[in-house]
């Protein structure tokens, strides 16, 4: 049972049976849109990068991205950079694993972002999605599709934040521009 999220929608990550999730995976998948024109069969490769920024009280504490694959505390792990996308043909091309139980106590928000490292706008990307999977059983909890790619090179996908004892995920879907997560910081801060 997966929830197709819309922009701004929040879902709680409490399990239906009352237990809370222990490990989730934020998966990102995309394919390069075929170019129209004379050499239509040639698609230009698009390198999207998934990043996770860990915030403590609105201050960035740690970041997990393709140059820092594991957060210092080991609770957030990036499975590795994918430079072309589309390999999974619908599966995750990049994934960030979050061990919710092990996140340091002062971290209260984790923001997931997607950047186009090669500089193409999301117009040249198709079938891009971001989904949240319960890592313990592989069940998809929420899926957010990047509908109608526009003239922007980054998107702030979602945030996972503490609410009481558990965690809540909120789909953000805010477009932004930037090559890596650093460029997105000003755009992220309003969402905290």
């Amino acid at each position: 049972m997966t929830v197709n999220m819309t922009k701004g929608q929040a879902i709680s990550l409490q399990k239906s049976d009352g237990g809370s999730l222990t490990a989730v995976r934020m998966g990102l998948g995309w394919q390069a849109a075929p170019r129209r024109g004379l050499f239509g069969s040639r698609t230009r490769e698009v390198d999207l990068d998934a990043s996770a920024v860990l915030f403590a009280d609105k201050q960035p504490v740690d970041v997990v991205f393709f140059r820092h694959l594991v957060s210092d505390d080991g609770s957030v792990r990036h499975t590795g950079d994918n430079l072309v996308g589309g390999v999974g043909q619908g599966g995750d091309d990049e994934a960030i694993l979050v061990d919710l139980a092990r996140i340091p106590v002062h971290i209260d928000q984790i923001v997931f972002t997607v950047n186009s490292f090669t500089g193409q706008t999301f117009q040249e990307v198709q079938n891009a999605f971001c989904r949240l999977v319960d890592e313990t059983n592989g069940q998809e909890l929420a899926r957010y599709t990047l509908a109608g790619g526009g003239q922007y090179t980054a998107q702030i996908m979602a945030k996972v934040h503490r609410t009481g004892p558990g965690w809540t995920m909120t789909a953000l879907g805010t477009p932004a521009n930037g090559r890596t997560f650093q460029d997105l910081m000003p755009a992220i801060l309003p969402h905290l």
Partner: protein
Amino acid sequence: MTAELVRGQNHPLSQARLEIRVSAGTPIVAAASIGDEHGKVHGVEWVAHPGAPTLPGLEVSRQAAADHRLAVDLGAVPESVHRVSVLLALPTGAGPVRFGTVAAPFVAVAGLDGDEVASYTITGLEAESAVVALELYRRQDAWKVRAVGQGYTGGLAELLTDQGVPQAHQLASGINDAVTQGLARSVQAPPRPADGDRSRQAAAAQSPDQGGPAAQGVTGPVPPHPMSPYGTQAPGVPPQPTSPDGGPAPGGSPQPTTPYGGQGTPAAGSAQPGYTQEPTPAPEPSAATQPSPTTGGPIDYSHPRRQNAAPPPPPPSAPPAQPGQPARPVAGDATGWSMDERLYNQVWGMFEDLARSTAAYRSAVDFADSRMEKEIDQALSDPRSRIGGQGDAAREAAQAKHAQLVDQARAAFDRDLTQLTAEVEVVEPALPLAFARWDNPVWHGYRVPMEIPMALRVGDLHLPECAELRIPMLVRLPLERGLWIDSGAAGSLDGSFFDSHELKRLAMDTAVAHAARLLAVHPAGEFTVHVIDPAGSGAQALAPLVRTGVLASPPAAGAAGVADVLARLTERVDLVQMAVRAGAADALPPGLDTAEQLLIVNDFPHGFDDRAVTQLRYLADEGPAVGVHLMMVADREEAAGYGPLLDPLWRALLRLTPVPDDHLADPWVGHAWTYEPALVPPGSQVLQQVLTQVAAARTKYT
């Protein structure tokens, strides 16, 4: 020399033990029937088929396959039997229904040595779905083979009826049931026993005379339920498949006996070249281990001779945890092909976990500190808070928030520490020699090992937050970098200062402990230790090594000794490098010691001239790749006269200290870990005992 038979042709058989190879493009059923002098098959128990695969002197495979190897021992066939017919049939239910649509089946009779005696390609089949391929028959006390190729459109039932089997239809459907069951059967047949196992089995194989055909056969229709490959469930089938070779089958042996038994070894061995020449070789065990469903033949991608690469035994798994409690740790609970590798990986896993848990704790505490500071600053900078108790209240609130967060962080950290401590408690006693502390009882049962371990413990690592939690520091063997036991840098962590003389002695003791451990974990004669002690100042510390006689030569003294040892080792590096580069490893001089070499240098740079220093640097750079390792016991300050010339040397070595010192960083987070060398407990005789054994083993070896 193979006789290629045409239909009706016969050929004499000089050997009694034969292998009949069948290959077809599609899975087929292979069976064999035995008949009397008139060719009559007297009953269902006279047919060997997948449901009852063995008869005296005869074994067929248990399922349909594109390739079969039927084992026949004509010497073990009862006297009353005059004819053995090899039957092939297409399995019913799925796949092709007539031989006309598949490639012509090929049958060959091969001897024990793997040479084919006769072969026959069954051509001209059309609508037939069963065929009598070959006939082995007794003619005047000699056996012959005849190519038959008689097909039957009515399948096995018609074929068996023609052979005179009373309940032919029942038997045919029973065979098909068995084949279908065989395809669906999920029980994995045990791997083909190694040749050694075969001889053991054969030594105790059952005599065919004790169990005649009647005792062997299936009475009545073949039981429809799945039969275990071990043959224990089927009524009417003796619990142990018997070998026609004779002798009782070993009780409870899970291996299906092969008709060739021990004497079959040449067949197993020399039949191998034949495999490579055949177009589609699929040895029988692969067909047995891969019950392929109706489509396609069992294509075995595994290397035919690499069947012994069994997966490692599963690691011990942690017992299920109590609800709400973390699982109790188990030693060796990590990946790896051997217990040592698992423990090594587990230790590294613990190292990483502790580094990360500590990072989480430190980061939370840092954050709490900075937040409290900010809040207090804010409260103080607000002029209103100076009136009344508002400022104090704000300060208290900030402090309370701080304390709450730190408490939470500490609780999470303590939870992790408890888990890791429990893990250390089970892992530490389970460690093998090379990973164990000197006070581990495993050292008291020391035996000179037979192989080089994968890693060596050089000490313990811990963090200030949890000084009692020690992680073993393991370095891979063979050493990739030299070791530098730093005898300088006075002033240790706990504030106690050692004078330089004391520190030098400690450094030499540490070096000896490391060298002794290296000697002890290498097999006899595979590790040689040289010592350079120009001034003889390390004589006392070196005494255990010298006294037990494990050194290659007495410690070299004076400038001449230094030059001599360095020249020898440099020459060795040169020679080995040349041999490796030229790809002529066997061209090394016969007297060359092939063991790994360790050079302990005490009191550097005392006794070293410029040439010796250059040679030493050369050894440090080039040595590890060709098995020459360096252990420097030195104070960097004393060599300061050489200026930056030696900086690369120091950087190339792994710095270890004789006293606890926090100079090692982990590769994940970069914490400063306190290193403590692995030293022999004071007063312990373990070093002496171990070195004595090493020396004894060396004398025996050389």
